[in-house]
């Protein structure tokens, strides 16, 4: 039985180390998914946690100024001003009307400071099920 004891100790040590790493990691990197209206209701708590906010990029709101990109996210007609300060290039899918996920922190000035932006193209080719039969893709005029 002694040798099984050794295995048990080793396995426990390995697993305990991993669990410890995983659980300390959670508190450092966790990000809360919030809707824009929920962010508004969070009060002061909103400034402490890392948040991830989803919404549509408002048409014409994207502005490139020196090293920064500002835009407005909207969800259910609630706008949220976002400034992107990260260094990674913005995804190619990020443009007017796209669904975007902004990761970052709420600033005290009411502007959301995003360090990461993910964007998904407004579903153009993958229509929602059910729409398929009734709405054929609009004929596209070729310009060439």
């Amino acid at each position, binding site marked *: 039985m002694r040798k099984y004891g050794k295995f048990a100790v080793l396995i426990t040590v390995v697993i305990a180390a991993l669990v410890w790493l995983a659980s300390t990691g959670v508190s450092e990197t966790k990000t809360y998914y919030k809707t824009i209206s929920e962010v508004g209701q969070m009060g002061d708590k909103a400034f402490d946690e890392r948040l991830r906010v989803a919404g549509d990029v408002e048409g014409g709101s994207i502005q490139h100024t020196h090293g920064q990109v500002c835009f407005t996210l909207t969800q259910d007609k609630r706008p949220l001003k976002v400034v992107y300060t990260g260094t990674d290039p913005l995804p190619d899918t990020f443009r007017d009307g796209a669904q975007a996920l902004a990761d970052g922190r709420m600033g005290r000035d009411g502007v959301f400071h995003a360090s990461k932006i993910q964007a998904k193209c407004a579903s153009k080719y993958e229509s929602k099920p059910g729409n*398929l039969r009734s709405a054929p*893709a609009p004929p596209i005029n070729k310009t060439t």
Partner: protein
Amino acid sequence: MENVASLAVLLAFCAAIYALLASVVGRIRRKPFLMVSGERAVYSVWALISIGSGILVYSLLTGDFRFSYVAQHSNHDMPMLYKFAAWWGGQEGSLLFWGWLLSTYSAIVVFTNRHKHRDMMPYVIGILMFVQTFFLLLSNFVVSPFKMLALEGSITAVQDGNGLNPLLQYPAMAIHPPMLYLGYVGFTVPFAFAIASLITRQPGEAWIHTTRRWTLITWLFQSTGVMLGMAWAYHVLGWGGYWGWDPVENASLLPWLSGTAFLHSVMMQEKKGMMKVWNIVLISATFLLCIFGTALTRIGLVSSVHAFAQGPLGKYFISFLSICIAGVVYLIIDRLGYLKSEAELESVISRESSFLFNNLILLASCFAVLWGTLFPVISEAISDEKISLDAAWFNKLMIPIGLFLLVLTGVGPLFAWRRTSWESLRRNFQWPGIASLILVVALFASGVRSFYALISFGFCLFVALTVLMEFYKGGRAIAAKNNMNLLRGTVELTHRNTRRYGGYLVHMGIVLMFVGFTGAAFNKSDVKEMAVGDTLKLGHYDLKMINLTEGEDANKSWHRANVLVSRGGDVLGTLEPEKRFYKASRQGTSEVGVRPRLNEDLYLNFGGMSDDGTRAVIQAYIFPLVSWIWIGGLVLIGGTLVCLVPSKVKMQYARTEVVGITRRYAEVPK
């Protein structure tokens, strides 16, 4: 034509159900003719799905825009390759592709085993066809690829389609999905054999011997697929990384991890008759994770950048997974007695124990990745707060796991079975150990302070040396005995036991990949808006914008920057990062400019044009050692191929207990 296609796929659905019932009922009632007809039905399933798929591909290639699928995923001006790749570029097509691959595999399995395993085959067919039925159910009734566009009651065509997602219009991406699918689907076969052998209580390890090549080839496809995905992310997505712990990437990694664990632990069963329950659990888990991975991109469980649109598929996949899990759990519990281990663990420092820890670590990492991927779902269920974990969490956990695994890669194969003596430990590990220590000290002295990087480089050298020593020692012995030179001796050595030395090569590939991963600790980057004539200095490179051009063809338009790269006054060449805009889908992509070298890659991305249109945003990166990831990948593929070559000397492993009951499967139950 569309009717023929739909009918073919519908008939395939019926044929699959028939094959399932005929095989299983035929086996239980001992009706040979019924079993044979079940086998033939498998071929007809393949033929029917091929007809359906053929028609879909034909419409894609010829641009038959009456098909809603074609209109959504293809357009006139797309190159032929991508028109073909559109087969798996969308939800409906890719599920049909899945089904077609499975039917192809099933047909091959039935054909190659037409004289073997008569006892087990009906159940193998039953399980394959059960899975097949599920996917055909989806293709027929839930997400049919043959929906037509209709306007006011009559079928109409649109002038041109939307085109394939431009991110997918890249050669590596055209073959990445089929590779992954070949891997995903392939694990169904060993799973089917494992379960069939469990149902029929096969004595011996017939299912493992039969499926060893299957599993290896499948694993090869899967590895290639994952690596192509990394290469694609690196060259196309333009963020300069190759792995971001995105849910979909994780989905491809999960079955790879459990499959790797399976490849190792079956050796325990083959050679020692141990871990039988464990192997069944592992292959089932791998299969289920493959299905889960297929589902994850489709059911919108977690948000991901490259997921398909959310659809009604969720409940189908969840029911299917639940049925499979319930079936497997029942079978294992019911047949526990049959899965009794034939040997016991003896020592902590033994081959058995290294396999045990290899499995523990691989499974733990698999579980960690799964946990991290599903954390938003789990946390929402528990606390009503949707919390996501980002790449930092995965890295924090996976780097130590990876390093531990790396060490095991080196030491595991050199431990003896049962127990290892201190003398042999010293002989095998003394010099590699000392050399690695010297390397770590030297790196530290030269200014490397990253803890993980130091450890990783040390381990890499250690493992590489142990592997090379194995080749050298064995090769030298053979060369001396047969009067060959060392190189021929090494080749001869490898040929005599391809499994062992092919495995070493795979391990070597892993080491090289780790060298590449470790390079990420030394990345450098900078961003600048550059007009023509502007310069940027990064590391020891001087970058100068010499030209900004734009242009267009029928498929896309682009902005391109010509950047002159020089170092200390010497011109090294130009890089041409490019921003593309695809017309049909109205979406942009980046073509990065990379100067790959063995020591480091210089990587330029065209971030976009400034608002006034005179300056380009250029993101410049230096990625040290990245090339070694791709080199390691190629070594890994090569090593796996070596494993597939039959050994020159037939190895007979003495099993500790129970020898000689494996012949019984030759009996024909008729």
